[in-house]
């Protein structure tokens, strides 16, 4: 079973020491840059950059093990875009010289009425770039939570102010406490797995209908006990004065260092540069990008 491990891990790295804000800005920059480009080569560079940050943060490769799922997403994008691309794309006034190239037909020539349903090279390529965007974002997101102590995140989120509005502490608590319960839930999961295997449940067979039944035996107990402990948790919170009508004190401090200024500036420069490159000069943008010109 692939497990998703996005729990903070302790390490003395440059990335770990950055302020949560800086790391959130990194996530936002990745979103912006990945949206700006759709040429697979440019996105590959972005992904390499993210991997570079992960290496800098000394994140062990096993934390990204579950990323193999992304291969399926990329494959799915390539196939569906290859087929659908020309069927509902609006290409505005594309003047660049190129030819649609048909790779093959899903409904082959020898079939009655064929060939039909072409798979187009440009579509597949575009699908590939969409897939790479997903890869970039999925690789970047865990870096924030893997390298930021949940208490730093809690403290930072509690400091966020937009005019007089603040993020309610309840929301922050739920968000950051969820990470605290990952080991608890995964323990329950293991115990349930053991209990069910011990009475003859075989996980990982080939009959899909049977596997659905088999997975119920895992998820029903885990979900039920999580819900029950969530109930006890609310009672336990009350007895610790959670939600007392006073202004909450936070003893935890997060520090903004000089490096944060540098990284913030760098991220903004890179993001703006990428936007200009893509939108003003058309670098890293496929000539057949579907778009509407109003």
């Amino acid at each position, binding site marked *: 079973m692939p497990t998703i491990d996005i729990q903070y891990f302790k390490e003395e790295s440059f990335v770990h020491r950055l302020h949560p804000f800086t790391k959130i800005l990194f996530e936002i920059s990745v979103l912006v840059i990945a949206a700006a480009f759709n040429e697979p080569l440019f996105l590959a560079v972005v992904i390499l950059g993210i991997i570079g940050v992960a290496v800098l943060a000394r994140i062990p490769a096993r934390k990204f093990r579950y990323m193999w799922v992304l291969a399926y997403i990329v494959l799915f994008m390539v196939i569906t875009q290859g087929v659908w691309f020309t069927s509902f794309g609006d290409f505005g006034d594309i003047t660049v010289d190129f030819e649609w190239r048909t790779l093959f037909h899903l409904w082959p020539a020898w079939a009655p009425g064929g060939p039909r349903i072409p798979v187009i090279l440009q579509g597949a390529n575009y699908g590939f770039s969409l897939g790479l965007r997903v890869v970039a974002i999925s690789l970047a997101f865990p870096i924030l939570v893997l390298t930021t102590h949940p208490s730093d995140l809690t403290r930072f989120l509690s400091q966020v102010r937009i005019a007089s509005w603040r993020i309610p502490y309840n929301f922050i608590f739920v968000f950051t406490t969820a990470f605290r319960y990952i080991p608890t839930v995964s323990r329950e999961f293991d115990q349930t797995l053991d209990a069910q295997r011990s009475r003859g449940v075989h996980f990982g067979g080939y009959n899909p209908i049977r596997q659905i039944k088999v997975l119920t035996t895992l998820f029903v107990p885990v979900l039920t006990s999580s819900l029950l*402990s969530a109930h006890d948790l609310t*009672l336990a919170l009350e*007895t610790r004065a959670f939600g007392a009508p006073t202004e909450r004190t936070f003893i935890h401090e997060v520090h903004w260092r000089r490096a944060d200024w540098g990284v913030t500036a760098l991220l903004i420069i890179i993001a703006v540069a990428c936007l200009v490159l893509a939108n003003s000069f058309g670098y890293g943008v496929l000539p057949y990008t579907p778009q509407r010109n109003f």
Partner: protein
Amino acid sequence: MSALEPVVTVEELTFFYSGAKEPALNNINLTFQRGEIALLIGATGAGKSTLYMCLNGLIPHLVPGRVGGRVLIDGSATSDQSISELAQKVGFVFQSPDVQLFSHTVREELAFGPENLGLPKSEILRRIQLAANTIGINQLLEREPAYLSGGQQQSVAIGAIWAMLPEILILDEPTSNLDPQSSARVLELIRSLNKEHGKTVLIAEHKIDAAAQFADSVLVMHEGTIAMQGEPRHIFSQAGELHELGLVAPAAAEVAYQLSKYGYTFDRWPLTPEDAVQAFGELL
């Protein structure tokens, strides 16, 4: 326990969970003296948890149902105080450590209650130190609660309550998930919080052999009522009655009870193996 001063008074307390036809608590009258340790025993479903929830204000503030009678903590009724006010008077330690440790470090776990109360930072830091020293968890402050052993987790849970400086501590089967050594340590800790810091303690336990010896009084609950109440030696000398309620006395008291059927009597009813050795030795 020299000067009797009631710290908790329960008067004609009755409680029905919403939708229930039978009361979970039925006309309970109780008093706890400041500085005593009371041991609460009763079969599962006898109403122990419902009673606690009445003492720390979860009933009537949070749990839906119908309440009769009243509970006074230090002279004022729980219904007139908010749960967060009561949290500073009545500390509650749950059976399972996993549901009561929400933080990412032990330090923050200890700070959590005082932070919620909005106390000044210096006061919170003082209380963290105080709780860590009293409970003996100084070396755990930077650890993650989720990865501590069961005994350590239970100590941290007690520490987190301690940081709220309550007068009364309620512990719901605090050792039921622990191995014998950790159980002994946790019980010893509870005992010292009572003896050295004068806190009033109410503890529920199935493993009565260890707890019986340091309790000042024993409460026996049965089907929502207080079936028996008194000094440990007195209660546990009535093993026959306990059996009828689906309960047992500590092994020493049980053996004494069997011997009493043969006509042997004891001035001081044995509770611990040491008592028993002395008492039976005298007979021999």
